[in-house]
């Protein structure tokens, strides 16, 4: 029997207090996410239960119980306090998916800091921008990434502390601190920072069409939504072994890779390795994964490998499969049912929403290709893009809108009130995604309403890419758009007009690609570059990305009346 029971029944009787009461949110003054993810589980008598099984790419395995999680997160909290960090300070975690990432996240919350995990493949410019914007006070990293941090440090006057969690014997620079979690003294008791439901907890950067990436700020009461959506959408039961493949540098990896599962007292497994179908299946088999939360890009990569690698492994442990990040195409749903004996259930949400808002649920009919239905307690609709009034005709495309006020709704864009206010119109939160709703209430994704590129489930902003391209000595002008890709849904394509004296060539293409990859990230790296003599612009000089994008997607180019003529 699934945790959600019957979706229709839940719609009728749901209110968010059901979740608050289930975990005792606010009881005895407890509001801190860190408490709910560790101490509370131990107080319930489950201290010896395994919280985290971590496997590295060489196959070495580490196990941590909830008591380990409690004590080690206390150690991190103590160390951070010792350095002089205070509640409210932004503390970045910049490392691969090692146990210290997950455990330090809980530690930061316990000392009242604002956890700011960042994707470890970010290049220097991407990292610098996000740390500068947040005025981050400390960064926890590893030797592998320390070079990047050192090279940008002088441009970050607020960055007071660099903590290296695998310091070893190499000499450190001033204000660098080595802290090896498993060698530091276990701290059994600390004063967990007193926070309220609205105290900031996590800061996740997300990309938009214009401007730099924005920090979506979440608060401690987000756990009320993350707990119940984990329980009902991911359907996690006490004995499940759960694998969320998302990196905690992105919101999926924190909401459902740390907070949700640990607040539910679940054993989760983490594989710190790049993608390999054989390795993934071997991992599921070895650890007997029962619930798997992954991304459509990964599923399509597995599809590409076919049924043969599936047949070489015993995947009979798998009980429930859910996907996230981008729409799950119908073929992938159908294929997964053939491959694993059960289909992936698509779930939809955003960095700004903090938790799943529309989904397919256990026991509910899946329509392959559909996002599913709104989570109980959420009011989701599609809005007329001009009036922002709900569209009542089934099948008509509009903007996905959500009624504000769910517990995990972001409370701010860091330092950017104007952009935050612009996300709410006519009493609705505007997601930026377009969809229709059919006569049975199922949502069907159409696309983004803006120029943001969704590649492999991650949003990449064209402005950030174009700004970086302009820093390449050969680039005069550029435009970055998403082009269709059978695996990643979209990948970045850059159109570049070169400066005089530069000629297009494969060498230049590779040079520009690697330049962007190192500056920003592999996700932002153009997978294709087209050299052009000029970019389409409006008469006011604004590059018309949508024309370039429409061409890539084989769509109508629409109104060109503002296009600058040749």
């Amino acid at each position, binding site marked *: 029997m699934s945790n959600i029971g019957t979706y229709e029944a839940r719609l009728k009787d749901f209110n968010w207090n059901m979740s608050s009461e289930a975990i005792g949110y606010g009881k005895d003054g407890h509001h801190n996410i860190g408490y709910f993810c560790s101490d509370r589980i131990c107080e319930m008598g489950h201290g010896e239960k395994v919280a985290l099984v971590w496997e590295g790419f060489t196959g070495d395995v580490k196990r941590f119980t909830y008591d380990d999680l409690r004590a080690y997160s206390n150690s991190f909290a103590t160390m951070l306090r010792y350095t002089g960090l205070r509640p409210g300070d932004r503390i970045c975690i910049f490392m691969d998916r090692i146990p210290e990432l997950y455990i330090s996240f809980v530690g930061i919350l316990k000392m009242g800091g604002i956890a700011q995990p960042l994707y470890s493949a970010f290049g220097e410019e991407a990292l610098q921008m996000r740390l500068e914007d947040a005025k981050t006070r400390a960064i926890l990293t590893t030797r592998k990434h320390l070079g990047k941090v050192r090279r940008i440090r002088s441009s970050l006057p607020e960055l007071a502390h660099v903590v290296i969690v695998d310091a070893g014997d190499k000499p450190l620079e001033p204000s660098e601190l080595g802290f090896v979690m498993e060698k530091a003294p276990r701290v059994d008791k600390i004063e967990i920072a007193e926070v309220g439901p609205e105290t900031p907890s996590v800061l996740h950067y997300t990309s938009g069409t214009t401007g730099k990436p924005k920090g979506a700020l979440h608060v401690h009461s987000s756990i009320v939504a993350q707990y119940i959506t984990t329980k009902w959408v991911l359907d996690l039961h006490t004995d499940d072994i759960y694998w969320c493949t998302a990196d905690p540098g992105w919101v999926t990896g924190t909401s459902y890779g740390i907070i949700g599962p640990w607040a539910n007292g679940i054993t989760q497994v983490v594989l710190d390795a790049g993608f390999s179908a054989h390795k993934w299946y071997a991992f599921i088999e070895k650890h007997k994964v029962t619930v798997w939360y992954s991304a459509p890009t990964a599923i399509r*990569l597995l599809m590409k490998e076919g049924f043969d690698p599936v047949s070489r492994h015993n995947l009979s442990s798998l009980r429930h499969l859910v996907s996230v990040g981008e729409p799950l195409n119908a073929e992938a749903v159908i294929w997964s049912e053939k491959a694993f004996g059960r289909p992936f259930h698509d779930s939809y949400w955003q960095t700004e929403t903090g938790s799943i808002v529309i989904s397919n649920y256990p026991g509910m009919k899946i329509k392959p290709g559909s996002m599913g239905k709104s989570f109980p307690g959420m009011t989701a609709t599609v809005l007329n893009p001009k009036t922002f009034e709900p569209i009542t005709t089934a099948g008509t495309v509009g903007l996905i809108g959500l009624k504000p006020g769910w517990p995990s709704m972001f409370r701010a864009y860091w330092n950017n009130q104007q952009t935050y206010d612009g996300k709410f119109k006519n009493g609705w939160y505007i997601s930026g995604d377009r969809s229709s709703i059919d006569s049975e209430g199922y949502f069907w994704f159409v696309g983004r309403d803006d120029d943001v590129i969704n590649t492999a489930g991650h949003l990449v902003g064209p402005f950030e890419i174009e700004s970086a391209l302009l820093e390449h000595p050969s680039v005069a002008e550029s435009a970055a758009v998403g082009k269709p890709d059978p695996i990643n849904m979209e990948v970045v394509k850059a159109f570049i007009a070169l400066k005089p004296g530069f000629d297009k060539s494969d060498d230049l293409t590779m040079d520009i690609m*690697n330049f962007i990859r190192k500056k920003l990230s592999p996700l932002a790296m153009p997978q294709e570059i087209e050299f052009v003599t000029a970019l389409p612009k409006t008469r006011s000089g604004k590059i018309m990305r949508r024309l370039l994008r429409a061409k890539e997607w084989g769509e109508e180019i629409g109104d060109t009346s503002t296009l600058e003529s040749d």
Partner: protein
Amino acid sequence: MAEDIKKLLVDYVKKEYLDEDSDQVITEDTKLISGGIVDSFSMVSLKLFLEKKFKIKIPDEKATPEAFDSVNSIINLLRECAAL
């Protein structure tokens, strides 16, 4: 000749994918993709480098994470594509 190619590929990976301060050792068997050294998104620039350097065409269906996962597997891929 094979040793020259191995060295070329190892040096390229070190230059393009490792931090200049890195003490990571790269050999012909080091797991590049599954080991998290080369992100799968970065494969396209590596593919372009290989095609240009060795004057071959690598079909998209052969440009898999497994084929790019080590210097040795890349060399096998190059041999396969040269024979096409």
